[in-house]
């Protein structure tokens, strides 16, 4: 490894109004190395990277590229310095093809020729063994394909300093391994790579060095080979935390939800759920694993009354009346009026769960406004609830009247999960509740789910981190292309077994 510094940050400070996002950060990344940046939500990792890529401008401090001080005022300046950033939320135009997105904003010599660009893209793809179809439209692509386009986009611009903001948050284990192989190839090619991630085992397996931020401050950089998960967590959180999930034996289990032969067809007329039958028991966590887009979302939506059910039954055993009710073809409100409580944490937390422009209190009221007795809204109780959630779940926010949109991803998630749990449900469905969350918050959510389970709630947990599914869930149901490919016992299964089940039907039908 040659130890030439590609980027050096000195005393970088950035504030947003009264919030200090970064304070006196010093950081170096060398050529031919992968540096991980680790930190909790709101610790300022993304803000820091945005300053290198020209989205934000630092209030104080200096940036050096190859030993020379530079001023990066816009993304264009960053390109000129060969810095490329792959954002957590992809910056791609949906209706454009991969090639169009890649050449976007470039000032190439000569005529605009998309065909030529497509050939160049193929060359880059072959060099690092990417798989990409240059003429495919973005909106027809899977998440991992989109990410590939993002990476090629920066490589196409000749970037040799790459910044990846949580690249694995949305990938399957197999896709993650592929991505890492590509990143290692680039490192060996002499590129400097910065990767932001929460997943400690990825940090350890991929990076050469790890820099840790906490609450906007720089804590330190360690060599990966000289560190361990527990040391990194301690640096990150500032205290030792327990990384074990406490899985209790299910008690007083009773069949709460019985799903029989469920079929669903989506808006495009494609069958998304095919003959799904299972039982969710009270006092147990049922995990659902599967490649993204295999029908997890539709399944939860069908149960919650948000998706039209073509065929099959959703039977709910009401613990209060001991009666069995059929939830099929009832709307969410009717389901609640029947005394059936389903709390639902949608995958798309800002799209379906919360209203971004409303503050935390108002978002609490979305679930409770019908309870009020007078014509005027009652704000006292939602406000108490909001304050309780902020307190219990350690939501980082100036106050309870801050629009949810302004919170960082993890904090938005906490507000949503907190609200759903506060409704004291009998069935709690959570889809990717820890997506994009750091370790501390993730474990907080796992513990919350466990608490609910002990209270006798039937918990349905759709997860992507197989390690967690295996540790947390009592039973794990695997679905592939809308079909159940297997149900395994969480206590004696392995990640590999689930991984195999995930791809079982998938192999025959391509990337379903």
């Amino acid at each position, binding site marked *: 490894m040659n130890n030439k510094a590609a980027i050096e940050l000195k005393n970088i400070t950035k504030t947003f109004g009264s919030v200090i996002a970064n304070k006196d950060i010093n950081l170096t990344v060398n050529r031919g190395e992968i540096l991980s940046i680790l930190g909790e939500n709101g610790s300022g990792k993304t803000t820091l990277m945005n300053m290198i890529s020209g*989205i934000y401008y630092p209030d104080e401090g200096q940036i050096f590229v190859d030993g020379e001080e530079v001023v990066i005022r816009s993304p264009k300046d960053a390109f000129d310095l060969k810095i490329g950033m792959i954002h957590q939320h992809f*910056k791609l*135009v949906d*209706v*454009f093809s991969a090639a169009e997105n890649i050449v*976007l*904003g470039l*000032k190439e010599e000569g005529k605009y020729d998309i065909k030529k660009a497509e050939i160049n893209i193929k060359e880059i793809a072959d060099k690092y063994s990417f798989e990409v179809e240059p003429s495919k*439209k973005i*909106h027809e692509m899977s998440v991992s394909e989109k990410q590939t386009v993002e990476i090629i986009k920066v490589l196409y611009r000749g970037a040799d300093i790459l910044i990846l903001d949580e690249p694995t948050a949305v990938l399957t284990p197999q896709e993650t391994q592929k991505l890492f192989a590509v990143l290692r190839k680039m490192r060996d090619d002499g590129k400097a790579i910065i990767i932001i991630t929460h997943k400690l085992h990825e940090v350890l397996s991929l990076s050469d060095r790890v820099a840790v931020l906490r609450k906007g401050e720089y804590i330190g950089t360690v060599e990966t080979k000289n560190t361990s998960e527990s040391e990194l967590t301690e640096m990150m959180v500032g205290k030792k935390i327990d990384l074990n999930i406490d899985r209790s034996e299910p008690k007083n289990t009773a069949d709460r939800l019985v799903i029989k032969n469920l079929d669903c067809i989506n808006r495009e007329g494609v069958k998304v759920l095919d003959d799904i039958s299972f039982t969710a028991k009270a006092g147990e966590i049922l995990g659902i694993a599967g490649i993204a887009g295999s029908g997890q979302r539709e399944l939860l939506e069908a149960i919650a009354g948000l998706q039209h059910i073509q065929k099959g039954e959703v039977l709910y055993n009401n613990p209060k009346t001991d009666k069995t009710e059929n939830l099929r073809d009832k709307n969410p409100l009717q389901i609640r009026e029947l005394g059936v409580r389903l709390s639902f944490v949608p995958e798309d937390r800002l799209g379906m769960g919360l209203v971004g422009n409303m503050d935390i209190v108002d978002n609490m009221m979305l679930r409770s406004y019908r309870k009020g007795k007078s014509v005027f809204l009652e704000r006292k109780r939602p406000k108490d609830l909001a304050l309780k959630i902020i307190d219990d779940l350690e939501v980082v926010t100036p106050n309870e009247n801050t629009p949810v949109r302004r919170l960082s991803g993890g904090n938005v998630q906490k507000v949503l999960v907190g609200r759903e749990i506060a409704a004291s449900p009998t069935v709690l469905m959570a889809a990717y509740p820890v997506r994009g969350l750091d370790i501390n918050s993730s474990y907080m959510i796992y513990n919350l789910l466990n608490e609910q389970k002990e209270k006798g709630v039937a918990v349905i947990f759709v997860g992507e981190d197989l390690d967690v599914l295996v540790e947390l869930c009592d039973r794990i149901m695997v679905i592939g292309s809308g079909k159940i490919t297997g149900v395994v016992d969480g206590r004696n299964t392995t990640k590999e077994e689930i991984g195999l089940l995930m791809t079982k039907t998938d192999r025959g039908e391509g990337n379903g």
Partner: protein
Amino acid sequence: MSFEMLIAFIQQSVRLSSTLLLGSTGEIITEKSGNLNLGTPGIMASGAISGIIGAYFYTKSGIPFNPIVSILITFGCAIIGALLTTLIYCFLTITLKTNQNVTGLALTTFGIGISNFIGSLINGKMGGTGIAAFPEIGEAYRATLPFADKLGVFGKIFLSYGFMTYLGIIIAVIVAFVITKTRVGLNLRAVGENPATADAAGINVNRYKYTATCLGGIISGLGGLCYVMDFAAANWQNNILDQFGWLAVALVIFAVWRPNIAVFGSIIFGALYVIGPFILGLSNKSQELIKILPYLVTIVVLVIVSIRDKKENQPPQSLGLAYFREER
């Protein structure tokens, strides 16, 4: 309908279509940059009245009349007038990031109002006969190729129009080409679809928005000029451009944001608008009813487009939204 009437009907349709085509081509450029400019009727009116102002001072100056000069002067005035009006919209929505709908509607009210005021003023200065008319300039705008009337039916249907009809089609075709086939067009579409992406790709979002909106405003303004000089033969009438402005905005949706489709759409809209008098025995009431047909057709297109749900036929994704860079 007799054959002569059919020909006359086609001619009327095409004459009116030029106004709509220019108006909507301008609005398409604007919308492609993510700006929903509902000030289009106001901008068209301001383009038209600026042309009238130019015509008034040119006629009044006592310089011997020359058709080419009269066209250049009115054309230039219309461009300046439309540009100034559009700049108000640009400054408010792009720089100050005000709500585009409200700003646009206010601009329409403003543009229509100010053009009515100036129109009445000029009318008063010209003797208060009710209309400000410049027949010579109207002639100049409506001049056709000298051999057009020797070519029979073909000449009547295709060559009997003033230069602005052809100019409108040429502009529409060029704009369609630029939007779909060039790097500038790619960047422009990216700004309208996803400005954050465009910004991250090193495109100057505000510059694209300003340029596209101003250029769009100018072209829309020429649509207004085309109406008053060509279709109305240089007679100013208050409040008339309002409805054509809204038709132009509806045409943008009808044409699913494609100027080449707008060429045909504008003729259909023009035909639906002028068909009333050509249907014999139709009362005045019914004629007015027929004028709303273009809007009905637009709704049908909207419904079809949203049922088919093809991403490429949807409005630009961030249409109507202001772009703030430092917002999460």
